[in-house]
């Protein structure tokens, strides 16, 4: 059995089909900034506050893979903790399939499975099996099916055969998988993943992403909200991403669409002669703006970065013009926007927005 079957069981419950999996309305949370004794004595009564989440409104649909992007301290983890009922919001509301995180925390906890970024939270002196048995009971799973389900989730995360080993002897990747298995055990309707691949090696991270895409998320399956700093995860896995900065929601949309929106149509052209008059003609016609010209390499080629306004058609025209002008061109590649650049540009350009509300 796959996780699809493991996570779909709860979907016939209370919520109407039109109801979003998550509905956040004007959600805010601020924390008191603690100061040392000397600082307090020097400036008493001037304690500060940090706004971890400010007026966030957003909907996440059932079965959606939703990414949370943003620099450290953007408010991603605080948002997760509020959804997992571990931190209470100061203002606004958050509902999970209609259940309010403040008024119906136990209902919310039955539906939401948080997976933290670190490997804390496991009983390291016990086996994986014992860890899973404990959480099965704490989530009030009963009957003979519990053992079967534990077997299933262990198989899905690739820990079958290692389930009787003490968790303290596991590698980081294995512990991360065990955390996922524990979350899947309860057939969550919403899976909260806080940087789940942070401690995984590149191969394990890729396998984990494939596993999420193939087994966990999708229509009729589990809704996943994932905080990530990985471009691969944001661009390849997420249906939509939200960019948080200093607690504010700055943008929400499909990752590729955001990338296109904030991309500056930059191309890297590998050319034989960077001083050829063809470049100047294109510049004078406003077809390109040369941003940087690299050194001539050992083979006599130079890398030129240009801004080519007008999208891919304009880029094709520029390429044709360069060749017509006699410039030797060995490569013409669009420079993909990095996640860091994307976030930086969104932060620089956008005012806080209310999305999907």
């Amino acid at each position, binding site marked *: 059995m796959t996780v699809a079957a493991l996570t779909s069981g709860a979907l016939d419950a209370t919520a109407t089909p039109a109801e979003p999996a998550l509905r956040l309305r004007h959600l805010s949370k601020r924390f*008191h900034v603690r100061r040392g004794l000397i600082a307090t004595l020097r400036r008493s009564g001037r304690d500060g506050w940090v706004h971890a989440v400010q007026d966030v409104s957003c909907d996440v649909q059932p079965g959606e893979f939703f990414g949370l992007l943003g620099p450290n301290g953007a408010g991603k983890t605080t948002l997760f903790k509020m959804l997992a*009922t571990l*931190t*209470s919001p*100061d203002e606004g509301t958050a509902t999970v399939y209609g259940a309010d995180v403040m008024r119906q925390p136990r209902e919310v906890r039955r539906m939401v499975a948080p997976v933290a970024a*670190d490997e804390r*939270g*496991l009983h390291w002196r016990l086996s994986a099996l014992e860890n899973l048995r404990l959480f099965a009971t704490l989530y009030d799973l009963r009957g003979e099916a519990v053992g079967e389900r534990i077997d299933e989730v262990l198989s899905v995360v690739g820990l079958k055969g290692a389930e009787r080993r003490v968790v303290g002897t596991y590698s980081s990747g294995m512990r991360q998988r065990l955390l996922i298995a524990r979350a899947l055990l309860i057939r969550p309707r919403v899976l909260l993943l806080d940087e789940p691949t942070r401690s995984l090696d590149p191969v394990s991270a890729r396998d984990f992403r494939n596993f999420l895409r193939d087994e966990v998320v999708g229509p009729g399956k589990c809704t996943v909200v994932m905080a990530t700093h990985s471009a691969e995860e944001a661009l390849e896995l997420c249906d939509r991403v939200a960019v948080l900065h200093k607690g504010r929601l700055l943008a929400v949309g499909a990752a590729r669409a955001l990338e296109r929106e904030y991309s500056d149509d930059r191309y890297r052209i590998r050319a034989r002669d960077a001083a050829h008059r063809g470049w100047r003609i294109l510049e004078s016609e406003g077809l390109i703006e040369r941003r940087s010209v690299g050194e001539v390499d050992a083979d006599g080629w130079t890398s030129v970065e240009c801004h080519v306004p007008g999208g891919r058609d304009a880029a094709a025209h520029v390429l044709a013009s360069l060749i017509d002008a006699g410039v030797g061109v060995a490569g013409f590649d669009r420079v993909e926007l990095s996640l860091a650049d994307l976030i930086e540009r969104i932060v620089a350009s956008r005012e806080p927005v209310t999305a999907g509300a």
Partner: protein
Amino acid sequence: MRSALALIRVSFLTAASYRFAMFVSVASLALQIVPTYFIGRTLDPFMAPAIRGEGGDFFGFLVVGTIAYLLLAASVDALPRALERGISTGTLELIFSTPSSTGSLLVGLTGYELLWTATRCLVVLAAAAAFGFHAHWSRVPEAAAILALVVATYFGVGMIAGAMIIAFRRTGALQTVVIVGSAMFGGVTYPPALVTQAVSRYSNAPDWIGRLVEIVPLTYGLRAVRKITIDDAPLRAVLADVGTLALFCFAFLSVGSLAMSYALRRARAEGTLSQY
């Protein structure tokens, strides 16, 4: 209830993985009876008049006191220690993100420690019996019920200490003050009446120090247990002590529950449930 049992089981499995520590814990208690026996027998002639109302056998007096002390210390310490451990390992946050009730989680976190202490008490009792401790064994169930009330009373203090761990990460000297104070004034190794007499006869200390014995719940619990198990006193002879202990129990558990509830609310509001 299932959640509590599951947590107790996990605590047992974790403790059992430290086999040597488990063995030392039991063996040291059994060996502790040897000096207790000789001290009890040596001081018996001097102490007998003072403990006439509580069995008159000083070795038996010490055995009951030791058992009550072990239970008292575990009741006060178990919850704050479990919470501290849960916070530092990150397990606390995760168990609080499950739908299990807070009450069952708290019982589960401390249940093993209390059961293990009860087992250690049985070891003490068995070792003491081997050294000639004579109790009215048929009265042990009644004594156990009174000791359970002592445990519940001091568990209330443990809840206050646990609330301080959740709210402030430190308890200061609360547990030490309660455990040492109860041992000193509650009659673990000498009758509480001695404290009152000593204060009035041999020092210039104010009278209220002598009256501290009256605000220590252990005083009432221990006196009742000793009367029942060593003196075979009828239940009505200890009703006043048990009633007072029950009042303490109600008060301490109420304050403990309120403190714990406030601390959890505060930790959720401040986002500090998992900070360590």
